[in-house]
């Protein structure tokens, strides 16, 4: 898989050519990583049955892959841990469902509407939540998402179908082509590939450098003449849109909107997937998503009633002993087999409990 070649480039700009791998290396690799990624994803219907999976699982993994990829842009790059990303996933899902049920069965109409909805949500929540950092940011995003969840179940229940979710949707189609089976899989896979390419580009551009700088020292960045607020908002909105696209695809794939899409457990699942896979590595969270979904749908049937117990234990184990997730495991194996690699750990960024990272200077204010 492309894991090892890719996370190598996570350093963004490294030394100028010569020193240790460095810039040229990275840029030679970006298309390679992208090509490898695309091949692995697009061929999933061919290889996933070998592992006991099935076509629908491949589609699910791809959709959630988009979701966690966007989450990684916010958490892995910028260091903001959102506990409320379900708001965008579920919000877009509800808008999509609403379009299919009451307006049009055309996927393009639904796509546009869902993204407009996501944008509005992201701007409103971002404007408020982004004022805070660390755990306070997490709580604020959680609170907004839960408010949305509660509203969908109560005030908007006549529109959303309440706890039962939104049913009776028209069958989505693109000018007559039905969105089922491999059709929706390849559409979703293409979106994931595009999303991955964009994320790679972002990471390896000055924009990505700025986001990482926000994680490292937002005050220094501000006093280097950078509008930190706009970069933060941009990262938040971009990240939300990934979730929104995933939400749209979810409903297009399964013409049904579950209330769970808005629930905090969905936000929690994204965090779990990212951490298990390896935060900040882009591919890591996608692998994490694949693992969790594979476990929930395939291993579950093997284990039976206690599958959640086993999943919980696996999760505890990974957090405790593999702080960098599966990608770290791959890196360790890679190293153990004699490959020398620059050891840059992509650990979970610390979620500051402090309100700000600003140094002593800030206290004067």
């Amino acid at each position, binding site marked *: 898989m492309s894991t090892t070649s890719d996370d190598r480039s996570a350093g963004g700009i490294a030394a100028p050519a010569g020193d240790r791998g460095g810039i040229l290396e990275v840029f030679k690799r970006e298309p390679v990583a992208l090509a490898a990624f695309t091949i692995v994803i697009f061929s999933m219907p061919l290889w996933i049955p070998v592992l006991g999976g099935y076509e629908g699982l491949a589609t699910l993994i791809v959709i959630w892959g988009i979701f966690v990829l966007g989450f990684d842009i916010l958490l892995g790059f910028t260091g903001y841990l959102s506990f409320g990303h379900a708001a965008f996933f579920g919000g877009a899902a509800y808008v999509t469902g609403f379009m299919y049920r009451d307006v049009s069965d055309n996927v393009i109409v639904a796509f546009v509407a869902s993204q407009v909805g996501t944008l509005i949500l992201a701007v409103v929540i971002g404007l408020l939540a982004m004022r*805070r950092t660390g755990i*306070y940011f997490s709580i604020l995003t959680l609170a907004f998402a839960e408010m949305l969840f509660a509203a969908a179940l*109560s*005030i908007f229940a006549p529109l959303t179908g309440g706890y039962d979710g939104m049913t009776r949707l028209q069958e989505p189609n693109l000018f007559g082509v039905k969105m089922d089976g491999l059709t929706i899989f390849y559409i979703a896979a293409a979106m994931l590939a595009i999303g991955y390419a964009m994320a790679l580009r972002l990471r390896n551009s000055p924009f990505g450098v700025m986001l990482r700088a926000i994680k490292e020292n937002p005050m220094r960045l501000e006093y280097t003449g950078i509008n930190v607020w706009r970069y933060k908002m941009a990262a938040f909105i971009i990240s939300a849109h990934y979730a929104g696209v995933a939400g749209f695809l979810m409903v297009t794939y399964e013409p049904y909107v579950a209330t769970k899409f808005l629930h*905090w457990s969905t936000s929690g699942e994204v965090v779990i997937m990212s951490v298990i896979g390896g935060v900040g590595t882009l591919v890591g969270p996608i692998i994490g998503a694949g693992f969790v979904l594979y476990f929930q749908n395939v291993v579950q049937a093997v284990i039976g009633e206690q599958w959640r117990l086993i999943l919980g234990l696996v999760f505890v184990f990974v957090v405790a002993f593999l702080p960098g997730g599966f990608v770290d495991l791959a890196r360790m194996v890679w190293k153990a087999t004699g490959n020398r690699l620059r050891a840059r750990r992509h650990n979970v960024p610390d979620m500051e*409990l402090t309100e*700000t990272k600003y140094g002593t200077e800030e206290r004067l204010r």
Partner: protein
Amino acid sequence: MNDLFLTVLAGLQIGAIYAMLALGLTLIFGTLGVVNFAHGALYVIAIYAAVQVAINVDFTVALIVVPLFLFVVGVVFERGVIRFFYDRPHTDQILVTFGLAIVVEEVAKWLFGANNIPFPRPDWGDGVIIFYGPGAVIPPVPVFQEAPQLWLPFIDGFVTFDYWRIILIGVTIVAVSVLFYLLQFTRFGLIVRAGMRDSDMVQFLGINIARRFAMVVGLGAAIAGVAGLFGGPILGVTPDQGMKLLVPSFLVVVIGGMGSLAGAVLAAVIIGLSLAFTADNPDIQAVIIYLIAVVVLLFRPRGLLGRKGVFE
């Protein structure tokens, strides 16, 4: 007036459970800097331990055994898990404790099933309490005649309330008082409070902070034990109780100010009352707790009583 009185009682009683869980959470957070998402799981262990002892032995025995047992669970939990995460990012702490919470829930389901286990209350706590006002005539029903009665000047006629819930409110007041006493007037409390302010400094002074840390988690767990003892007969005994209480009690901690004990109690009361007073309007009740959290965090980020400089 009767209406208002009963609603306030209901609010206080809802807040009581939150207060006890939030106290443990905020204590552990304040001292150890660890966000313990497994605190709900401690409550789950408490209710199952309590109901088993109450059914098979006696509730009075459970009264002593369960908090002690939870104290031990807490100490083991700190020594066995948490201490390996002091130097890890808070995200890791949250995730590993969250994972453990899932494990505890699933083990409880495995052992005892997903359905409720009826939790019989001891005779001394069963039945209703009667509040009556001037000139009230209490009907000659035996249950009412035997029930505890309290005269309150503002009650019109008489009203009944679940006696156990009044006991719960009382127990919470006692638990909070004992905790404040421990922290305010004992050497242990002095060190813990110093540790809440600056754990490095306390360590520097050569005080065995590790043992105290274990004690703190034990103490937090023991309060969860008390909450389970008195909350179990009301809220039921099911494996998902922990997860249901986790988010609200965590929000209570944040609203009160992370690490602030008084803040946790205050926030719990506010949340309890706001839930009780919005009971007739489910649309508002569903969002009220989050609305309060958002408003507080936006206008007073360190919470209602959070101290500046310590957690900021």
